[in-house]
């Protein structure tokens, strides 16, 4: 026979307890009944104020409507218990039902505390606790324009914001000298106060209410100091009182100031009767936050479901909180107010409305608590340091000033019992266990199986680091799958294409993917196929990224820019004149690029084949400025002209550029050759760069990080030209084969296990025994080069693809230019739409 388990209260904690019972298999052992006083199933009271805006209880519910039935739990709504008989062991409900119990869990929570001043019972005074309270508030608010909230704590400030959102004059009245008096000090409160006041909420501190004014309906507050606040409605949010009346009347022991007394296993003085959440009084503490309630629910459910095993005990909870309060970050944890001996460090910036305080142990080595207002990014890291009692870095102030790094030195070796998610009480060990069980290998899975990161979300960065670190430790390649259509990295797809001889996207997705592909995997596969077979890319036109598809770079207005190849930046006067003539003929804007070439901008799509034809006829070819490909090799004038030059950098740059022109890679590639150590070609700012020495050439790799600028690192020194080219062949092919999609050489090198030393070992010492293959692959690419523009110029069928309309010869009539500095440029994008950029 199943034992009868009755839960009083279907709030957040009662519901979490039922969830945990179900999770631990307790419904096999217990017949579970849960009683709720409210007419609806459990909902998220923490986000109650959202109900003001979306008026939808649906989004607040903690479980689907059939959850209780599916889990075999009986739910009685609008039916609170009215008495508990601890002798005959039964509960009587408001409907007269008698429910015998073997185990009784009291999770009746708390009610709003309403101070006892004169007139508090007038019409127009409300509490802020349930959805039903909110509905009454919204209904009454229709007839008033000025509303006060009594209480400047978390909930009170939320309520004040809701009042403001309803379009009413909003006031907050607080008895203490500061806002959130249990969490913030004077300085923090003052920063928060000015922020909130700037939003339009008026704040009145140090106000002790004497009486409510008005006849039958509420008409304002009079304070003990004699002042009067003229408002027409009052929302009371001045604290909570545990709902312990059932216990009091049935011999269950309660504290002097309320709350059902429980021990470390959450037992009351009556055998088989327990209390959890805001009704429970543990070691003199009532916790008015949901996280400790959840923790109690978890511990009690565990203990009831696994008899005989070691029970868990409740050691009290941390009162840390992080909130987005009225659009302002506020966080407070540990001994935030510095009530014990301590060393405070604080940072205030009134201009930005930021206040940060660390409460340190007297020797400055441990974190005891802290407050963050206006910028709470550091919260989750600080909380981890605090909860795990980790020794702080030598300059603890670095934790609150400057940018906190994700892997700050203090986080390196957290113990397994380090708490990561305090909302759901998940430790580092819990996360590792879940990852090691193999059931979750990404963040989404980890959230689902541990619930970590599903509360406030502040721990997600740490979850991510732990996940990556652990996957790496297991020897798994931590690369994201290319996208939802392929469960492979780019490197894996490259090997698949090569080994299986796959030459089309269609074959790749049919044999190794799913769905229809997308703008991420199609160009990735296109690039792989191009890198292996070097066929004209127009053969696979529809899977090319937009610039590759049109062999030109799409720019504002949907026009294109055209960049002919000018190897090494060397150009004859005749060719220079030709470019000018062509630009004039098609009315193109001209600009010298950073890579020593000439950009011709403002070409309409249908003009492209004609422009290319003119250029090709004059001996130019595509510069591949559109491709994730080898683009340009910059050079200085070297020993031919320069009085310092020690080698002919221009000749070598031209040789390099012509050898590798247009070779498809995971990202664009650029190079440069400098004729001496003065580095006029800025070769170390390139994916690979060459600098002349007295004895030959120094080869550098992995520079030009794009958004994160990087200098290239020396791979080999004093090389002759042939060896230098051989090493570049190997380097480029190795990168093309192994880098992830859209990863530049600098990031690739950084991620390479063993870094530059390993790369040297591969390229110079042939550690992997693949250099012959790499060189052959490169020779094949070099030998099969064709100019992609010429490919289109020679084929009238391909030219048809450049018409703007399929059914008209017209140009796009919406393209517009204006003149600036003697040339044309596209008109700006509409302003209003730019806002959503």
């Amino acid at each position, binding site marked *: 026979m199943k034992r009868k388990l009755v839960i009083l209260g279907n709030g957040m904690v009662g519901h979490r307890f039922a969830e945990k019972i179900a999770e631990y298999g307790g419904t096999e052992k217990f017949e579970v009944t849960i009683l709720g006083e409210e007419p609806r199933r459990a909902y998220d009271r923490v986000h109650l104020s959202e109900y003001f805006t979306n008026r939808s209880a649906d989004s607040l519910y903690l479980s689907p409507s059939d959850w209780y039935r599916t889990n075999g739990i009986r739910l009685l709504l609008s039916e609170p218990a009215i008495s508990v008989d601890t002798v005959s062991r039964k509960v009587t409900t408001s409907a007269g039902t008698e429910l015998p119990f073997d185990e009784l869990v009291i999770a009746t929570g708390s009610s709003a505390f309403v101070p006892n001043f004169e007139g508090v019972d007038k019409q127009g005074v409300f509490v802020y606790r349930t959805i039903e309270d909110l509905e009454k508030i919204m209904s009454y608010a229709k007839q008033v324009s000025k509303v006060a909230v009594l209480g400047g704590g978390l909930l009170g400030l939320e309520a004040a914001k809701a009042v403001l959102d309803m379009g009413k004059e909003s006031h907050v009245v607080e008895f203490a000298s500061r806002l959130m008096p249990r969490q913030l000090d004077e300085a923090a409160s003052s920063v928060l106060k000015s922020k909130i006041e700037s939003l339009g909420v008026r704040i009145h501190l140090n106000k002790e209410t004497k009486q409510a004014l008005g006849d039958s309906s509420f008409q304002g507050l009079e304070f003990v100091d004699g002042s009067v606040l003229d408002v027409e409605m009052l929302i009371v949010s001045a604290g909570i009182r545990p709902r312990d009346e059932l216990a009091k009347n049935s011999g269950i022991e309660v504290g002097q100031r309320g709350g059902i007394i429980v021990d470390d296993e959450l037992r009351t003085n009556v055998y088989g009767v327990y209390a959890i959440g805001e009704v429970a009084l543990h070691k003199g503490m009532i916790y008015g936050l949901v996280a400790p309630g959840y923790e109690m629910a978890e511990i009690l459910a565990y203990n009831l479901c696994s008899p005989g095993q070691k029970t868990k005990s409740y050691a009290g909870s941390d009162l840390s909180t992080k909130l987005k309060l009225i659009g302002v970050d506020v966080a407070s944890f540990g001994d935030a107010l510095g009530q014990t001996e301590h060393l405070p460090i604080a940072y205030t910036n009134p201009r930005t409305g930021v206040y940060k305080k660390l409460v340190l142990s007297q020797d400055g080595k441990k974190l005891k608590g802290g407050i963050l207002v206006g910028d709470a990014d550091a919260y989750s890291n600080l909380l981890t340091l605090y909860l795990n009692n980790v020794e702080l870095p030598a300059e603890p102030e670095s934790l609150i000033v400057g940018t906190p790094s994700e892997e700050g030195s203090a986080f390196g070796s957290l113990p397994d019992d380090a708490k990561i998610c305090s909302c759901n009480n998940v430790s580092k060990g819990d996360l590792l266990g879940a990852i090691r069980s193999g059931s979750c290998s990404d963040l989404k899975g980890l959230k689902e199986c541990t619930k970590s990161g599903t509360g406030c979300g502040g721990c997600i960065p740490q979850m991510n680091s732990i996940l990556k670190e652990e996957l790496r430790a297991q020897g798994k390649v931590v690369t994201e799958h290319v996208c939802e259509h392929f469960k492979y990295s780019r490197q894996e797809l490259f090997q698949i294409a090569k080994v299986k001889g796959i030459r089309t996207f269609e074959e790749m997705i049919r044999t190794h993917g799913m*769905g229809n592909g*997308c703008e991420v995997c199609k160009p990735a596969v296109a690039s792989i196929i191009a890198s292996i077979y070097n066929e004209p890319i127009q053969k696979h036109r529809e899977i090319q990224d*937009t610039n590759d598809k049109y062999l030109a770079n799409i720019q504002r207005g*949907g026009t294109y820019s055209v960049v002919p190849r000018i190897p090494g930046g060397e150009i004859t006067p005749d060719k220079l004149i030709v470019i000018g003539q062509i630009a004039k003929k098609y009315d193109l804007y001209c600009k010298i690029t950073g890579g020593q070439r000439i950009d011709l901008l403002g070409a309409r*799509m249908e003009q492209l084949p004609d422009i290319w034809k003119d250029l090709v006829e004059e001996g130019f070819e595509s510069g591949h400025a559109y491709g994730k490909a080898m683009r340009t090799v910059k050079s200085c004038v070297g020993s031919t002209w320069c009085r310092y030059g020690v080698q002919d950098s221009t000749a070598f740059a031209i040789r390099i550029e012509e050898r590798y022109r247009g070779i498809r890679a995971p990202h664009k590639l650029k190079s440069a050759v400098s004729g001496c150590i003065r580095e006029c070609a800025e070769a170390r700012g390139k994916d690979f760069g060459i600098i002349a020495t007295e004895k030959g050439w120094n080869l550098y790799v992995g520079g030009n990080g794009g958004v994160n600028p990087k200098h290239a690192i020396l791979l080999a020194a004093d090389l002759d030209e042939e060896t230098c080219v051989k090493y570049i062949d190997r380097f480029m092919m190795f990168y093309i084969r192994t880098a992830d999609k859209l990863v530049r050489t600098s990031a690739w090198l950084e991620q390479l296990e063993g870094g530059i030393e390993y790369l040297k070992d591969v390229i110079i010492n042939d550690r992997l025994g693949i250099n012959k293959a790499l060189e052959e692959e490169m020779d094949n690419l070099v030998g099969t080069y064709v100019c992609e523009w010429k490919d289109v110029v020679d084929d009238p069928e391909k030219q048809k*693809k450049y018409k703007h309309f*399929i*059914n008209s010869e017209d140009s*796009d009539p919406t393209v517009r230019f204006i003149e600036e500095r003697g040339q044309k440029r596209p008109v700006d994008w*509409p302003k209003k739409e730019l806002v959503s950029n």
Partner: protein
Amino acid sequence: MNTTAKEPVWIPVSTVSEFPDDGGVCAKVYGEQIAIFHFSSRNEWFACENKCPHTGDMVLARGMIGDSQGEPKVACPMHKKSFSLRTGACISGDEYSIKTYPVHIEDGTVYIGMESPGTQG
């Protein structure tokens, strides 16, 4: 959308063979620019306005098509924002969306369903 369900006027645009497999083209229909996609790997056709709602540029026909969780979509070539080809909603989560049109194939001809001329803005 009209509240009264009105049968659209079907405008012939071009022949099926003019369309690239799994690609798009732009057609001029009643003076409007319509992007039409032959999503051959799904054996479906879609049409939407050619205008990128974010930049105002007439480029969506040049975008790449694909799917996201099974929903057919086009990625704008300007900044890769994706739009559902069924509903026009922005899949990347932005507020703006695009207009979509019905496509009908008969005897090798591609037709776009438009409201009758005169109701076009």
